């Protein structure tokens, strides 16, 4: 898979989105705070724009109104003609695409950072497209700047026409997930961690804009492989739950034969794969309706090439 082009010029148009899911409170409250006091998002070479992505869902403290906004930035939805009875998030995705995009165009924002929470014990996790070399450098920088608690990187492999998330509207982007935090709850520890992560993201962009060098490196990442549903009865209802030995063990290796579910009748269900798997988003509240008990990933090391070094004051070409 070929890499996304790396930026050859300073990033000027940067957005930080929160409330993409209206009940993930860290981003909701940070964005509201920045809308009142935008100074925290200012750097010498640019000012990031705070965006409350799903205001209607945020107002009622729900993930979404009609459908998951963070699955709606596909070309099908973005180019569809507005109809009176379309779902709220389809309209909203088009608005955001107008504001921050258009997706896949030269007018699109340079970078979108999208802020999320999970009920799973994911700690600090960055989710991005492995081909986005600029964002991979950003993760590397964040890991060095914020080593406690450790952060992990989840990469997805997607081409431009299969991406669907808010941050895919910009030329470069990344999702930050902090957990565990229940939906509708704001925890002070996660709130301050997210605030300092966002500050580091903006610092990195500023450093890049100022011509700092970011050499090649190798990095351990988790690569998304697929999803695992709960055990279910014939009528589709849950027949069991995440096994107590798997609960809260996100990113810890699961071997074939390890217990992964416990049925209400008391029996255990074992993992039937044929190799070590790393589970993610274990028991995330929002994924029950998506038929996902957890995601499976593999751990691997990736090599990321150096970023181009920008000239602070580029001399015009003759």
């Amino acid at each position, binding site marked *: 898979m070929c890499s996304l082009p790396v930026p050859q010029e300073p990033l000027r148009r940067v957005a930080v989105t929160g409330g993409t899911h209206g009940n993930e409170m860290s981003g909701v409250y940070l964005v509201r705070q920045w809308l009142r006091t935008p100074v925290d998002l200012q750097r010498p070479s640019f000012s990031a724009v705070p965006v409350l992505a799903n205001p209607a869902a945020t107002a009622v403290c729900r993930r979404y109104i009609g459908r998951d906004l963070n699955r709606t930035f596909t070309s099908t939805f973005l180019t569809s003609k507005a109809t009176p009875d379309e779902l709220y998030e389809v309209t909203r995705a088009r608005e955001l695409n107008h504001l921050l995009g258009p997706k896949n165009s030269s007018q699109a924002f340079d970078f979108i950072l999208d802020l999320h929470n999970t009920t799973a014990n994911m700690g600090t996790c960055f989710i991005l497209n492995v081909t986005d070399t600029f964002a991979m450098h950003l993760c590397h920088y964040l890991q060095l700047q914020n080593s406690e608690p450790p952060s992990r990187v989840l990469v997805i492999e997607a081409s431009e026409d299969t991406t669907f998330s808010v941050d895919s509207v910009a030329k470069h982007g990344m999702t930050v997930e902090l957990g565990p935090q229940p939906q509708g709850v*704001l925890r002070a520890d996660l709130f301050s961690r997210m605030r300092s992560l966002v500050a580091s993201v903006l610092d990195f962009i500023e450093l890049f804009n100022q011509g700092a060098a970011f050499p090649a490196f190798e990095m351990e990442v988790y690569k998304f492989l697929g999803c695992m549903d709960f055990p279910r009865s014939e009528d589709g209802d849950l027949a069991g739950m995440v096994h107590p030995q798997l609960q809260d063990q996100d990113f810890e290796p699961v071997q074939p034969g390890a217990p992964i579910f416990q049925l209400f009748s008391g029996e255990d269900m074992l993992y039937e794969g044929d190799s070590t798997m790393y589970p993610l988003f274990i028991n995330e509240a929002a994924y029950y309706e998506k038929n996902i008990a957890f995601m499976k990933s593999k751990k691997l090391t990736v090599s990321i090439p150096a970023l181009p070094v920008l000239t602070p004051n580029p001399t015009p070409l003759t």
Partner: protein
Amino acid sequence: MEKPIKKIAIFGGTHGNELTGVFLVKHWLRDGAEIQRTGLEVKPFITNPRAVEKCMRYIDCDLNRVFDLENLGKKMSEDLPYEVRRAQEINHLFGPKDSKGSYDIIFDLHNTTSNMGCTLILEDSKNDFLIQMFHYIKTSLAPLSCNVYLIEHPSLKYATTRSIAKYPVGIEVGPQPQGVLRADILDQMRKMIKHALDFIHHFNDGKEFPPCTIEAYKIMEKVDFPRNENGEVAAIIHPNLQDQDWKPLHPGDPVFVTLDGKTIPLGGDHTVYPVFVNEAAYYEKKEAFAKATKLTLNAKRIRSSFH
């Protein structure tokens, strides 16, 4: 001497996104062997099926606040909120409230996002039978801790779903996010119900329970988040208070931290015990936590009148 217990109900899904009770009750509706006891009628029941289906706390209003005589006496009409109509149905099936025909005991199963552990909720501090039951459950669960929360208060007591029974029992286990089912929490709630049913079984069998005392926490006051001029939350639970339910909180201890980092301490001049710290469902009820006071409850000896 008290009459033996005959009819028991176990309610789940009074709040549709508190999943432990929802799935325990659904499981017992399919296979109720573990909740059956000789001579007892034990009925598992989903109280708010529409909210369960949508995995929301409620559809129109909080079902666990509408079992007052005014709402239960309203003329049935399609214009009433769904939960008021449902409350009347439940009152018809398991009540009527304050009548001879009502169920003897209702256990209502709840979860909280707060770090409350196993909690038994008591509505009346003079109820010898329930204090004896709670003493039995606490003793049987040990070393697992189980606290008793007393909601007897002239203005803060609320009209619970379970209040239609002669002996209402609230069971609250946390922390568990809304819409999530945790195996460890489910196991704890299952044990609480098992011990409660065992107690009733022993009581009906004629076992005598000598006088006992339990420690309890009685609600004193609800505390809202500090808010700005638009009514929005301006300060959140301080990290030192987060997850510290039931732990003594002294005057001067940090309670809130404003969004720009200033600490707000506890005022007043006496130690309180915080409960329901940072419960998701209480943001809209303007409750960041509740202050409780610690006290001892006494129960007289009880024995079933059959023996």
